[in-house]
């Protein structure tokens, strides 16, 4: 009888450890695949945003693509500005690039 106790205990311990490990295992880690499924990073807003703007204001154009506004590649969310913050304003960028070009031509 005693001869079997040790191997029995070993088996029981292995089963316990295996089940514990399985309890915690969160599939086999494949962060590469997870990253591939992740959304891209949100673009900054290239036009002036009204300071009080929230989703309702943004979606006036961006819900249906009015005035050439891009449609969102992700499902509609209402709190746009938590991710899409004010970026460099296109008109200012264009004006700055124009000025630089003029300066270069003058040299």
């Amino acid at each position: 009888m005693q001869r079997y106790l040790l191997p029995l205990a070993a088996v029981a311990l292995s089963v316990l450890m295996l089940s514990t490990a399985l309890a915690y295992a969160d599939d086999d880690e494949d962060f590469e695949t997870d990253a591939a499924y992740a959304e891209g990073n949100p673009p900054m807003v290239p036009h002036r945003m009204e300071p009080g703007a929230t989703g309702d204001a943004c979606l006036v154009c961006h819900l249906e693509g009015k005035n050439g506004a891009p449609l969102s590649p992700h499902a509609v969310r209402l709190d746009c500005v938590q991710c899409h913050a004010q970026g460099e304003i296109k008109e200012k960028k264009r004006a700055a690039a124009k000025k630089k070009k003029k300066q270069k031509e003058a040299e």
Partner: protein
Amino acid sequence: MDLSRRDFIKTAAAAAALAAAAGGKFAETAEAAPDTSGLKWGKAPCRFCGTGCGVLVGVKDGKIVATKGDPKAPVNKGLNCIKGYFLSKVLNGKDRLTKPLIRKGGKMIEASWDEALDLIAAKFRESIDRNGPDSVAIYGSGQWTVFEGYAAAKLFKGGIGTNNIEPNARLCMASAVTGFMTTFASDEPMGCYDDLDVGDTYFLWGANMAECHPVLFSRLIENRLKNPEVKIIDFGTRHTRTSQMADQYIKFTPQTDLALLNGIAHIIVRDKLYDENFINQHAVFKKGKTNIGYGLEDKFKFADDPKPITFDEYKEFLKTYTPEYVSGLSGVPVRTIEEVARLYADKERKVNSLWTMGFNQHVRGTWANNLVYNIHLLTGKICKPGENPMSLTGQPSACGTTREVGTFTHRLPADMVVTNPEHREKAAKIWGIDPKKIPDKPTYSATEMFRALDRGDIKVVWVQVTNPFQSLPNLSRYRKGARKGDGRFVIVSDIYPTRSTELADVILPSASWVEKEGVFGNAERRTQQWFKMVDPPGEARNDLWQTIELAKRLGYGSLFPYKYVEKEMWEEYRLFNAGQGKDLAPYEAYTKARGLRWPVVNGKETLYRYAEGHDPYVKPGEGIKFYKNKKDDGKAVIWARPYEPAAEAPDRQYPFWLCTGRVLEHWHTGTMTGRVPELKRAYGAAVCEIHPEDAKKLGVKQGEKVKVSSRRGSIVLTADLRGRGKAEKGNVFVAFFDENKLINELCIDAYCPISGEPDFKKCAVKLEKA
């Protein structure tokens, strides 16, 4: 344009389908997307707020190249906020600290680690020998990893033998802690983020969630989009983006939240809307001292004197708080107070309350926390899925490190306190030291610690992972105090030059986030682990290593006999929590999972504490049991806490309320976010939010300069009359992230006598055209 919600949902669904089918015109990115091929990816919780979003970090050639919201993370399901999306840039600022620096002749000179650490150890030894162990201190952080906090607590309490350890969480969550401890005898929420998805009524109290917990706010908005009966009600002292998106914005006079909470309880009791059964089974009533002071004098001491009262005595106490009285104080219409009370008590509604700094950074912060719990206890809306009071946490590990490890002057791990001899005995046993080593008296809360430095009672202070010389209230006093000389020695461990490193005698370049292995614990009790993924720059080292190096030099190296430090330290720390209703899983579990909510028993995490079927510590048949409160037989406490005025209300000379806080794009003192060009561009400098009518009386127009002064300091700011946050009349708001605009110089260092947490939301200022 007025888009009705029904139309919106219809078109939203249609648009989503259309976009998916037709693959519409995608947004142009401002710059080319980074090449994400050949990257090694790993998981980590976000470096920023207490939400604890899951992030995937992509590393190439030893550098963080990209981060993404982790689609597998239950907290955020792939979403981040704007700060989280820039995590890859946050550690790459040009002026990263890379070498230890020692102040010599007024200049910071580069030194080796040995030179710096030997000097620090010598200063510690000298001060301990000359002035005793209470002359040295460490000021840590809710951004400390669990390991860093545990090492500091063990060294200072178990080695040096002083309770002079305090975290910056004293400035943000202390009132939440004392609220939990006095109501439930155990820290941290009973609910979890799942409540955001399954409830239908959400009261936000002085919490600008849209900017400060954006991903959690998104969960609320998502819930409401799917379930139109969901109501979000925003109680605030200023109109924010949160107010804009809420169903109802209720403005109230600062400080009167105390009266409003009692007012709601008054109506619930008056109209017998309470759950009598629940109260009989699960609650007791108590009162404490009143007129408890404001902590304005150095070495202010307060000890409450709780006394049991009856339900009838509590009803008698509530009689003062009639809707008319509360309306007069707060400015909230009587009808609104009645409606809110009915909503809270509505048996068909699953009600949640959410709060952070509005309640916590409050001279009666503990009381405010008690009072919101009262409402949930009176109505029995607690410990049930979708119905919970949820205290939101500000920092990524104020819970996991400072509160759970207990890096406060009065604390030991797992809710234990230094004043209890059994607790000291248990800590000493686990730490392998003589229990007499741990001092039995708390010394200073954070504010008092820096007062002690100013007076010279503390000579040596080590600051890790925080920026007190920008974030303390009544800031000027403490900035001057740090440079008074006469044996004072300030060490600052940080990753960038800050308003604190500029006052240091030694600066130690530190590793941050995924430059070291770590564990954080978020607001919903979710403990999350990450591995080191990149090396810190130059000679920067992990704060954990720095603390252990000091320990060795002071002769306490035996407290840290670990080979694989993090894992072995974790297994030792776990012993404190085991069997206490705060159980943590073995280390490997966290390396695999996207976090686990404690108590974790037999591999199973707990969503709802104190609830049968969820919390393994609640026995079958018990239903709900607040089992940590043994003193009151597993019942929670309904506290009779009165309205008491603010420490410094507006008067003739200083007629405005000043409130301070955060904005979406910047985190805390902006040392990290301020170095990301896109975030800096999105919100560059702190401004002064003023109501247009107040501005008109001053002759100040949008964008003009205004001088804001309190009894303690003065600052010139650009006036903002129509920003994203709109001040109410008689109020101004200034964010504290701007290192060039130290608004905290104006703040008053009054604090809640029970929690020690300063009131950053209320003091009196005057405005002048500048």
